[in-house]
């Protein structure tokens, strides 16, 4: 089941390889079908998922069964290394509450991304092959439970992303693409070293061999005491935690490693921005929750305050930057930085409320920010500009568009009744109840105010008021005496067309529904989060020592 959901896109990619490049419609439809099949599988997995099982670590006795679900585990590579014992790499997939949330999000965003890619005309075949490769890699990351496998998927994302930004991007795409590539690789090469170090430090209790299994790594009793990353080697454990954290923080992206994100977003085509903000950024915080924190819980406990402060900087700095942007897409990109800061803050709270909030915020940010980027894409398609001050009074000419924008904008600023509110509320409840992060939480609340400021201000400037003198569109009085606007070379429907509605309406429904009744998602992830909090708690660690 999980293998299928991971490799369906790549199969579609192989099919596309055989389709002649002139058959653009077939290529799109094949990709869409694969994405929909992926979505169906995600729903089936969701239906079959037992929310009472905890995940994170192995069940009692050391076996992942009974803790993780939909497990697929086969030996992939077994090497006898003579004196070094053996090298065991497994093809090991499975989901728990943390990953299933992300699997559903990824499947959803993949479909939206394909729909949003429909108008792309340049090298359609290459585009969809790369897109499918990216979809496989993303999904693989979220279900891989072997560190080696995770790393392969993690790195596999880079190359398609590089080309998707680099070939189909905006004018400054070369710079943005290589910057993205270099930043992420810089973070992940350290991950490679930590991965090797962990391998030599961890023993799988079931086989007695060294292992790459993240499940075994998440239990501190599986570590060899004097190994390089064993409990005795405090210095290297701190070093490993820090470099892993930086590696994941680059992806989040966390201040001061965030500078690649605005560049990448501004240059990337709309669907890639959607994927980037909707799924890829979550990989950073997912990696922290799956790998960085549970493997080094004592270092995590020692650095709660630092992580919280970094989260607060993200929230406020991101909001300030967003406030200063003239380019709508750049504003949304900085708002992503700000909103991912809530995730960091929630994680730093290290209690159930905060962590639930963080994971729920990851899901909600995925859906909300996908809407934001789609909406930016809608106006950019029509006007070929994203400068906020070149619009005005759009609400009276594009009412449906304005309505959807309002929902998305309000969801983003955390209006009660929309999903973003619940996750942010959880984050703050968690952060306030933790003594370490209380002060930081108080400061971070300001982020909400600034968030409201830039969102409402842009809404007001673009949609309310009157047409500006240098607007990106012309005003015409139609035969019926009403005023219409006219974008220079836009031939399509002025307001949202059917395809755009198909993308946006389900997202809006999800955002509203999960704002009113969050239990479908919260119910799924709570037991895993509780387990994670338990694994990370200082009590368990002192008991071990």
């Amino acid at each position: 089941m999980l293998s299928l959901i991971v490799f369906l896109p790549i199969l579609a990619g192989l099919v596309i390889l055989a389709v002649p490049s002139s058959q653009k419609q077939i290529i799109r439809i094949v990709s869409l079908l694969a994405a929909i099949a992926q979505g169906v599988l995600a729903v089936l997995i969701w239906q079959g998922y037992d929310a009472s099982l905890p995940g994170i670590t192995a069940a009692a006795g050391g076996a992942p069964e009974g803790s993780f679900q939909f497990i697929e585990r086969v030996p992939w590579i077994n090497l006898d290394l003579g004196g070094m014992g053996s090298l065991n790499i497994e093809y090991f997939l499975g989901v728990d509450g943390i990953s299933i949330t992300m699997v559903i999000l990824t499947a959803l965003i993949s479909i939206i991304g394909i729909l949003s890619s429909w108008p792309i005309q340049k090298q359609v075949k290459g585009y969809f092959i790369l897109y499918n490769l990216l979809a496989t890699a993303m999904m693989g990351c979220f279900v891989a439970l072997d560190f080696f496998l995770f790393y392969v998927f993690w790195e596999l994302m880079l190359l398609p992303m590089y080309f998707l930004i680099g070939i189909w991007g905006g004018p400054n795409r070369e710079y943005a693409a290589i910057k993205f590539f270099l930043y992420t690789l810089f973070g992940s090469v350290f991950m490679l070293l930590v991965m090797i170090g962990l391998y030599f430090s961890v023993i799988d209790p079931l086989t007695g061999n060294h292992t790459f299994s993240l499940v075994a790594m998440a239990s501190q009793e599986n570590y060899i005491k004097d190994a390089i990353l064993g409990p005795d080697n405090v210095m290297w454990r701190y070093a490993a935690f820090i470099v892993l954290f930086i590696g994941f923080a680059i992806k989040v992206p966390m201040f001061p490693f965030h500078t690649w994100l605005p560049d990448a977003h501004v240059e990337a085509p709309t669907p890639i921005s959607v994927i980037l903000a909707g799924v890829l950024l979550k990989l950073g915080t997912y990696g922290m929750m799956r790998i960085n924190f549970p493997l080094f819980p004592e270092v995590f406990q020692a650095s709660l305050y630092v992580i919280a402060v970094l989260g607060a900087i993200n929230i406020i700095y991101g909001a300030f930057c967003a406030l200063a942007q003239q380019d709508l897409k750049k504003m949304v990109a900085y708002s992503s930085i700000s909103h991912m800061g809530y995730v960091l803050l929630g994680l730093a709270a290290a209690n159930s409320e905060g962590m639930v909030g963080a994971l729920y915020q990851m899901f909600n940010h995925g859906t909300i920010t996908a809407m934001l980027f789609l909406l930016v894409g809608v106006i950019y398609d029509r006007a070929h500009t994203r400068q906020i001050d070149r619009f005005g009074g759009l609400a009276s000419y594009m009412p449906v568009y304005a309505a959807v924008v309002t929902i998305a904008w309000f969801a983003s600023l955390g209006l009660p009744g929309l999903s973003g509110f619940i996750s942010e509320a959880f984050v703050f409840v968690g952060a306030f109840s933790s003594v370490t992060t209380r002060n930081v939480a108080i400061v971070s609340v300001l982020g909400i105010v600034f968030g409201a400021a830039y969102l409402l201000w842009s809404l007001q400037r673009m949609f309310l008021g009157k047409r500006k003198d240098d607007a990106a569109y012309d005003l015409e009085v139609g035969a019926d005496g009403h005023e219409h606007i006219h974008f220079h070379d836009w031939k399509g429907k002025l307001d949202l067309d059917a395809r755009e509605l198909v993308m946006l309406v389900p997202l809006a429904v999800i955002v509203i529904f999960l704002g009113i009744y969050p239990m479908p998602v919260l119910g799924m992830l709570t037991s895993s989060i509780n387990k994670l909090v338990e694994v990370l708690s200082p009590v368990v660690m002192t008991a071990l020592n």
Partner: protein
Amino acid sequence: MFELPSGAEIQSIIAALKTGVGFFMPEIYLSVLFMLLIIVDLAVKGRKNNLLPLLAVLGLAGSFYFIYQQHLLEAGEIFFGMYALDGFAIFFKYFFVISGILAVLISVADDQLNRHARSMGEYYALIVAMVIGMIMMASSTDLLMMFLSMELVGLTAYVLTGYRKDDPRSSEGALKYLVYGAVSTGLMVYGFSLIYGITAQTNIMKISSELALHGYDPLVMMLASLLILAGFGYKIGAVPFHFWSPDVYEGAPTPVTAYLSVGSKAAGFAILMRFFYVAIPHGGEPFQDIVGIDWLMLLIVIAIASMIYGNVVALWQKNVKRMLAYSSIAHAGYLLLGIIAMDALGTQATLFYLLGYLLMNIGAFYVVIMISNRTGSENLDDYRGLGKEMPLAGAALTVFLISLVGLPPTVGFIGKLMIFSALLAKGSVYIWLALIGVLTSVISLYYYMLIPLNMYLRESNQPVEAKAGTGMAHKVAIAVLMLLTIYFGLFFKPLVDFAKVSSSMLGVTIY
């Protein structure tokens, strides 16, 4: 005072030589092939252009039979301790024959070489001769044999580099190669003579036991190690013995560049490992540890310098061949890391990395040749927009370059993984070496990606005149290399196992 050997002694010498021949079949076979190629060239002079490369490829492939037979033989020294037959040597025999076959294939593919070179007759014979020389380098257990085999490789390489007489760059490269080669070989022989002066032995096993038994002056031995490293370092193209390589790589015909960058480098590593592991073992069983000669420290310095220098200088290169030359300096650094680990895992990692390097580097040069057939240039700017014109070549080159960076799922990633594993398995002593390794590979991403950047992200600035497309056979060959690069990145067990059984010298698993 010299005495004539008695009849019985002569008898025993002849008997030893006869047994030795049985262990020497691949080399004899290849020598016959070498002469056959020259004779056939004389016979068909000017006609039947494709006969010679075909003969060379088939002939080289035929040697697999004789090499395979050697698995059955017992490992040991032959010809009075001049020469070894062991897993290590057999590994490199396969390696050099494969690289020779690939070198012939890409030579056939290169239009420029075939159009401009006066006669291609001796060319293929020289490639075979170099295969013989490299095999002997990997098998020599005697200082004299080491010197002679290195000279055999060197001399054929000089001629191959200068094969395009009409191109001044080619001649310049050959001359530089010769001059640097002469100097560094001279230094190496001086080092050999110092060792001979101390031990009165030329066989590396005997040198080792002599040093352990009778002691030595550490300073003189250190000097000797340094001088010998100059000779080996020149062959592997490591800093600071690399000065020849950018000019030679740029000037030489591209197939020769590819051949040198893989074959000659691997031969250098083979001889370096055999000499230092056996003659001056350092820290470990089974050979007695020779203390006080910190050649490992020298290797560490050389490795760091190579990784940093090679990768940083490559950033500014505008010519793809020159860029790959600097990248090959960096790869020499990575390969040295495996030797520095000084254990079974490290040796295994080095051998594995060499196999991966063979695939990805020959593959990269193969595509470079295909592109220069089309555009007549190896400049980065002329790669613009080629991704659309040559989809397969572009995709393949991207895979090879990603593999050279060391990203999954390619064989280059597994190579780096094994090398860094070998370092980290030592605990925390070599973490900083591994750190330099990974950081320099981030740098390498930038310049390697310049090639796909030009091929895919930029539009061609002049219309490419439609030339005859790439032949089907070459497309297949490139596709096979590309798929192997990915396949062995995912299912690398066979290669690692092969590297493992091969990391034994003279029947003893070294380190």
